[in-house]
């Protein structure tokens, strides 16, 4: 009996150990991929045309959804906070509170979620389709580095576009909150704006933009890495895309906590 238990526990530790080794090795490979991609950002050829195409795809084509989500997020936030502030007769604080929440947290996070769902998934699907149909191999066969051609433009475009979308989200979110504050809670326009200026500091905007840059890097790296490592035909493309989106969202949330912790502590 004791030998049975010993064998079982040995097996358990073996399986556990193997999983840990696999996990560490995968993470190491991912980090190497990130490092190689970053090196290619600074190497010729510089693909400005492809970067512009990706900016148009990730940025311009996401604009409508970012504007609508920004407006409704600000409006809902205004509604929720307005009810609470009304108890303390401090509805005027709505603008400041919404502005603070949007700049520091909501805007970068929501933009990352929206863009991961819309553009990140499309990036993974496109690259993984190219991968399973040998288009990536063809690229390599023509002595064109796939990291330089596929990953770098998406990374650079994401780093440029995420902060811009975040700023737009903040602006539209504040408008959404303003509409609610003025129409439902009779907040004075001047007071609403005054509290935003009073509460939202340049540091808040800076911290929010730092987050959006970090999220952009996470989304682009995971999308491209998943795409370039997809295997197994149409099913593989589906699996790679689903896994990529789930990983992006989890990593964005985890890094959000870490960055917020660092920003709050220092």
């Amino acid at each position: 009996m004791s030998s049975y238990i010993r064998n079982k526990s040995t097996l358990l530790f073996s399986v556990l150990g193997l999983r840990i080794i696999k996990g560490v090795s995968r993470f190491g490979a991912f980090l190497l991929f990130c490092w190689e991609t970053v090196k290619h950002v600074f190497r010729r050829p510089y693909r400005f045309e492809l970067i512009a195409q990706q900016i148009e795809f990730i940025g311009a084509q996401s604009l409508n959804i970012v504007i609508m989500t920004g407006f409704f997020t600000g409006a809902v936030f205004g509604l929720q906070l307005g009810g609470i502030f009304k108890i303390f007769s401090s509805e005027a604080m709505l603008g400041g509170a919404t502005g603070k929440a949007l700049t520091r947290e909501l805007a970068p996070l929501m933009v990352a979620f929206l863009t991961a769902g819309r553009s990140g998934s499309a990036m993974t699907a496109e690259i993984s389709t190219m991968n399973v149909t040998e288009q990536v191999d063809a690229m390599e066969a023509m002595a064109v580095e796939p990291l330089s051609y596929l990953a770098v433009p998406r990374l650079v475009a994401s780093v440029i576009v995420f902060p811009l979308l975040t700023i737009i989200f903040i602006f539209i979110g504040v408008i959404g909150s303003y509409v609610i504050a003025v129409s439902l809670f009779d907040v004075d326009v001047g007071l609403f704006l005054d509290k935003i200026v009073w509460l939202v500091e340049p540091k808040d905007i800076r911290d929010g933009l730092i987050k959006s840059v970090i999220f952009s890097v996470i989304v682009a790296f995971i999308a491209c890495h998943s795409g370039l490592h997809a295997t197994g035909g149409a099913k593989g493309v589906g699996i790679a895309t689903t896994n990529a989106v789930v990983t992006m969202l989890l990593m964005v949330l985890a890094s959000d906590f870490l960055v917020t912790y660092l920003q709050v502590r220092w």
Partner: protein
Amino acid sequence: MIYFEHVTKTFGKKTVLDDLSLHIPKGKITFILGKSGEGKSVTIKHIMGLMKPTAGKIMVDGEDISLFDQHGLMAYRKKFGMLFQHAALFDSLSVCENVIFPLKEHGTMPLVEMHERVDEVLEMVGLPEIKQKFPNQLSIGEKKRVGLARALAMAPKIMLYDEPTTGMDPLVSEMIDELITEVNAGNPELTSIVISHDLKAALATAENIIMLYKGKVALTGIPDDFRHSHDAVVRQFFSGRVEGPMEFL
């Protein structure tokens, strides 16, 4: 020209190339034959440096390519043109953009000359009028010919064909085989390597044939060596019989 010296390639527990040694001569059309799963495509990917051997070495023009770093491999691949099994055209690019792609990437000539070269290679494969079409508007035969045009655009020293006639009607197959011969006839320095199941094409077109079985060379020689071979595996493959020593997995 190209030497495989005791090359082994494994994927997990599966050994695809098993201590494989072979020689591909310069300036000739070499067919690599074998049934599905014998490692023909893996062999071609090793030659291009798209895969690294688990053991052994691959010498091309006297250089061990398994020692190349990524930068060295990119420079090395410029001497190749490759026609993939399913053409591997870029979906998002038009025919013209596909063919001009390697020329633009390695930009060694003015844009006007690049377009002239595109016209020239599309003419060569018999498709001069489809420059503005996209891959999803082409038949499989047209895709392969565009893939061939793209591979030829850079005037490679070594052409690799991965099952160029698979899934095509006999007329288009015949045309592709003729193209392979014409391309080589026009450039005596060009080494062509064709991965194929097409025995008729191999016997008609090849100057050298290598047959793989169980990850090793079953027989290598000129087409007549295969016609007159008494090797049971070679005879079974050429006769297309299910009964025989060849294992089907």
